[in-house]
């Protein structure tokens, strides 16, 4: 079931055929090994791999290299990269390298070390400006997944301890698990929304656990089209900000209505992130599909905010 990447908005997650935890399936530990043991249909789109550490490589030449490399060797795929990379474009932006804790399944585990697999993230190279030194912390990740089977919500609510279902209020089962501490909305169509995770990987793990619960309840649930829909981060610049001044100088991006909301709403164009800036110096960033967008947005706003630090 390979979707056509150019037309379908939902990214084909290459891990999905192996991800379904059917009772007969082997455990996930063997997943990566299995990829090498039985070379099944490997996705031919390698453009989600980050090769920007190679010298003198432009976007076009990267694509060339990738297509060549694809024929030569098996590549290890990080499901989390693909799930993050919605528009199959290569990360040329340097700020994308700043994944502080993007853990990926290490290639060494399976005994194969393809040289083109991205290594642990490097520090971003920003020669011109000094970085703020503050890293926004992710507070919430919202993701969706398709379980691809019709569900009987009453049945689920009866058989599951951690579910609540009130059809008069809302047409979905609200299920919660303790680890990772998340909440899921499960609809009768088989679609599910998972919220509350603090990282992309946690969100994926939580979504898989919910799918497992639904499976154990007797439904033939799959795990299709897992996608991160929204990421929320927050941080503190540690100095008060004159919001009235900021709205004057950045009028086209800012909306500051003290009668409505105490914070200033800043709609950044690139990356497309909405920031809530408060007088105490706390900043909330939301609307990101990738972690890098949050970091980039904060690095963009920090020098602007610093400009208002000394306003008397």
């Amino acid at each position, binding site marked *: 079931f390979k979707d056509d990447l150019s037309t379908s908005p939902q990214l084909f997650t290459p891990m999905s055929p192996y991800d379904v935890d059917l009772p007969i399936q082997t455990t*996930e*530990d063997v997943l990566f090994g299995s990829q090498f043991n039985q070379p099944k249909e490997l996705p031919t789109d390698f453009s989600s791999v980050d090769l920007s550490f190679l010298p003198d490589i432009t976007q076009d030449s990267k694509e060339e290299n990738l297509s060549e490399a694809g024929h030569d060797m098996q590549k290890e795929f990080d499901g989390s990269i693909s799930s993050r990379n919605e528009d199959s474009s290569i990360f040329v932006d340097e700020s994308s390298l700043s994944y502080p804790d993007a*853990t990926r399944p290490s290639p060494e585990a399976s005994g194969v070390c393809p040289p083109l697999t991205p290594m642990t993230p490097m520090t971003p190279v920003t020669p011109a400006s000094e970085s703020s030194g503050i890293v926004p*912390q992710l507070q919430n990740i919202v993701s969706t997944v398709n379980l691809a089977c019709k569900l009987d919500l009453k049945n689920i609510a009866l058989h599951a*301890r951690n579910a609540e279902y009130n059809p008069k209020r809302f047409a979905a089962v609200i299920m919660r*698990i303790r680890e990772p501490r998340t909440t899921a909305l499960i609809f009768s169509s088989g679609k599910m929304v998972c919220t509350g995770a603090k990282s992309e*990987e946690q969100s994926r793990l939580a979504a898989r656990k919910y799918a497992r619960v639904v499976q*154990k309840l007797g439904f033939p649930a799959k795990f299709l089209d897992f996608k991160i829909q929204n990421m929320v981060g927050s941080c503190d610049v540690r*100095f008060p900000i004159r919001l009235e001044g900021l709205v004057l100088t950045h009028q086209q991006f800012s909306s500051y209505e003290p009668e409505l909301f105490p914070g200033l709403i800043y709609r950044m164009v690139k990356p497309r992130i909405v920031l809530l800036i408060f007088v*105490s110096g706390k900043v909330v960033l939301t609307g990101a599909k990738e972690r890098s967008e949050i970091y980039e947005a904060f690095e963009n706003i920090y020098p602007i905010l610093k400009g208002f630090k000394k306003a008397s």
Partner: protein
Amino acid sequence: MAARGSCPGCGSTALVEDAHYAQQQLVCAACGCVLSEGLLTTTYAEEEHLREVAYSQSTGQKEQLSRCLQRGIRRVQDLCKVLQLPTVFEETAVSYFQRALQHPSFHLVSLEKKELLGGCCIFVTCRQHNWPLTMGTICSLLYVKQELFASVYLSLQKELGLSVPALSLGDLVKTHLNSFQLFQHAANVPAPFVEDKEKMVARTMQIVELASETWLVTGRHPIPIVTAAAFLSWQSLQPAARLTCTFARFCKLAGVDLPPPAHLRLKELLEILLRMASQLAWLRVFNMDKKTVVKHIGDLLQHRIFLLKNAFCLEDEEEQHAMTPGEGSPGSPPAAGGAAQEEGCPSEGKRQHEGRPRPLLPPCLINPRKRLRTAAPSASDSAITGDEPISDSEIEQYLRGPEEIRAFRKAKAWP
């Protein structure tokens, strides 16, 4: 069918509209005199009164607009008249309203929201011309809740891409004070409470500016601050007679609402003024409190620039104090920089006397509310890959056992 008017020939009022072949004629039933024929009338057949028919009516211009749009435009025009806005505002607001209604996101909203939309357009127009209209006023005119107004306003701003300048505080002060009824003698207002408008406006502006400099305005609703500032300025202009009057009574006499946050704003303003008073040489001998400081507001405002510098440490000094612990005794200020502000910052000795001169920060940073800080992601959290194996026991803890299900079925009579 009887028509109005009287026959010029016999004076009878029995006029009938009749048709001679296809031509309409107005004929007197008594004498048969034809009064008029071949009339080309509009739907408003008032020819005998010779009332001119408006172009928009005769050409059906109004009919081109939907009834909903017509009603909305009329409502916008009426609101502008109630608010006594200039005609330019009316035209701009109507054009925004028409643009907005054509936009797909507003085309199909409820009638209530469409009326709200009209109010939003007026609000945006006023703000763009720096006319100090508050949301509270518009909401009370439209009889809507402020949350609903807020959501429609924000989506209007986004969809039409309007840039709305910030509310001008100075203009707001003037407009808000206009509604106070303390500037003329009235039956319920005692004589010593009546005040000169110009003086009160000027002093209120100064206090509001002071509040703005000391971080009391940013992020807060402006009206409570203006109300509190008006109260302080009114009291300070004749303290002897007015110190006994409470805030609530003042608002009742003035005929304005007392918004709940205004009490807190008043407290914050008084705290700022007290700190400033502690730096004024001839006031240091007195033991100032919230009541007595009001008498000296005039002096404090006059010297506010100097007093603010002295009463509050700017953050830089705080950091430098912290970073240079070895430099001299606590009693002497650090010699780094030599900026003028440094001399103003009181030394440690003084601090013990009147409590630390606090840094000039917004109140939310001075009194941070104790909040559960979410722990930073631990190492084990960040090691999650998302593809870990999920044990069966972990999942089974979330499933009900058969006895439990039976019990539930019995209890809830599960269908």
